[in-house]
């Protein structure tokens, strides 16, 4: 009986070894050949040795057979790893069907040392909240640090404590040092000050009305289909080709984000746009009364002053080259760009595809608080020395960790950008880097359209990471990066 069983094992072992040889001959490149030879030849030897031990049924022989098996099982992976590593350094060509090379760019080819794939330490920067900063007392979410400066706040250092992966509702305090991850060159100017993508500019609000552009006041009719909709939902700007500067309800302009509030019958809308577009509104049944305004209409202008501001786009701004839609001025800040001054020309009613250029001055409308939030970020000081001393800060703790996650094709994030999916809000995690086909993207992540097989480096509380693991479409590869 034992002899029969051992011959079956010999046959199985032989088949595996034969398959290994076929693989080594037929596979297209070195690494696939190694895969077939190492795996199935090891298994083949194991089967044969087990058969030998059974066949002789002698303790001394079984020990020898066992010794060979153990030795092959121990050495084959080590030898294969050494050989593959050596071959990789010699630029052994990969099969042309290879989709992605996860190791590309990760080795220092001179020293053969594996560097941190994501190079997180290179991009850390410390921002300090100076005394008297208006940001003190605000939460991280309210400060909009992330969206304006395009950085992730990795940790807050307060006195001697380190708060890793702070939650969006963490309140900032004077003297806090924020460890942020992002592009240093984009943030720090020659003066060591924090550079905002936008600076205070000057544009006369009175310049709102020119020969081509006028202002008008209309009242929303109760029969209008716009009632109950927000300006954004109704596509007001596309539909009527005019901007809404203010909404009056009762006696005062409403102190709200214009684009997000639902319209009511009887609302008084202050509109600005090309004169022909305004004239066309006279016949639109959505509006009851139509009154053209002159720029001498002082009370109106007075109220507008608080809600309008001019912002310059500096040469080193991150917004240069982006379209208005990509700048997120609208959804992040509730700001509406009413006009762009470029050189001597003023473009009124810019389209959302309009690209911003260095030196542009934007005339924007928004809530006074939103405008203030933008200015407060200018107070942040960059602490260049602190980076060296904090460079070794351990980013992971028992509560907070990093994980690498692969998106599978059925993940609902596929095809969306991180900001569209509200990734930060939904999962409470920040994405520090995205790896796609061996290339690592560390900036502009918010607007990157995700594809299947993208690898996301996510950072946050471990319990949140575990939640992410359980979700369909996220394949967690490692929690040690």
């Amino acid at each position, binding site marked *: 009986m034992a002899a029969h069983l051992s011959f079956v094992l010999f046959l199985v072992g032989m088949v595996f070894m034969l398959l290994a040889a076929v693989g080594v001959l037929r596979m297209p490149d070195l690494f696939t*050949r190694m895969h077939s030879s190492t795996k199935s030849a090891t298994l083949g030897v194991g089967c044969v040795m087990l058969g030998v031990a059974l066949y002789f049924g002698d303790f001394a022989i079984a020990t020898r057979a066992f010794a060979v098996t153990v030795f092959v099982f121990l050495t*084959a992976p080590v030898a294969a790893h050494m050989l593959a590593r050596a071959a990789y350094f*010699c630029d052994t060509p990969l099969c042309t069907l290879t989709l992605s090379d996860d190791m590309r760019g990760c080795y220092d080819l001179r020293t053969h040392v594996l560097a941190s794939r994501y190079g997180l330490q290179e991009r850390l920067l410390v921002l300090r909240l100076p005394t008297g900063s208006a940001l003190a007392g605000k939460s991280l979410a309210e400060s909009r640090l992330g969206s304006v400066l395009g950085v992730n706040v990795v940790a807050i250092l307060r006195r001697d404590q380190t708060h890793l992966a702070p939650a969006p509702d963490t309140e900032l305090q004077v003297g806090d040092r924020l460890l942020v991850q992002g592009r240093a060159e984009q943030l720090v100017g020659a003066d060591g000050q924090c550079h905002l993508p936008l600076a205070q500019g000057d544009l006369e609000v009175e310049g709102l009305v020119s020969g081509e552009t006028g202002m008008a006041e209309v009242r929303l009719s109760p029969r209008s289909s716009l009632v109950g909709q927000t300006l954004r939902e109704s596509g007001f700007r596309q539909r009527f080709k005019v901007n809404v500067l203010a909404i009056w309800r009762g006696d005062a302009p409403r102190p709200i984000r214009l684009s997000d509030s639902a319209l009511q019958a009887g609302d008084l809308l202050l509109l600005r746009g090309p004169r022909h577009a305004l004239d066309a509104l006279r016949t639109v049944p959505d509006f009851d009364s139509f009154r053209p305004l002159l720029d001498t209409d002082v009370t109106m202008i007075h109220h507008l002053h608080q809600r309008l501001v001019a912002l310059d786009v500096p040469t080193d701004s991150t917004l240069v080259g982006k379209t208005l839609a990509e700048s997120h001025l609208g959804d992040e800040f509730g700001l509406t760009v009413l006009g762009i001054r470029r050189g001597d020309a003023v473009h009124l009613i810019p389209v959302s595809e309009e690209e911003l250029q260095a030196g542009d001055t934007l005339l924007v409308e928004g809530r006074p608080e939103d405008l203030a939030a933008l200015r407060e970020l200018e107070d942040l000081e960059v602490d260049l020395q602190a980076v060296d001393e904090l460079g070794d800060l351990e980013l992971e703790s028992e509560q907070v960790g990093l994980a690498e996650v692969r998106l599978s094709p059925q993940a609902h994030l596929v095809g969306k950008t991180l900001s569209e999916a509200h990734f930060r809000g939904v999962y409470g995690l920040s994405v520090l880097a995205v790896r796609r086909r061996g290339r690592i993207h560390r900036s502009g992540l918010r607007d990157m359209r995700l594809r299947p097989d993208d690898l996301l480096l996510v950072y946050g509380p471990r319990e949140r990471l575990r939640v992410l693991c359980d979700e369909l479409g996220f394949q967690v590869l490692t929690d040690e990066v």
Partner: protein
Amino acid sequence: MNTLTTIILSGLSLAMLLALVRLVRGPSLADRVVALDLMASLAIGFMAIYAVGTEQPVFLDAAVVLALIAFLGTVAFARFIEEGELPWRRT
């Protein structure tokens, strides 16, 4: 030696031949080392089956030794490929 061991030994010989083709073809040194490593594994299996066929367990000792040697050979080759020269020749 019975028929069954003969069949198994012929199968292993065929595998050895296939590995030999890869050893000759290359194209890179690493490919040849992979083929050589596989041939060592095949030889270990061959010796074990031969010991069974001839009822001579002594041949197993040779298999033990070959298992030890083959690993050292592959490691040495890997070092050679990575360093590009023999370690003791380096200045």
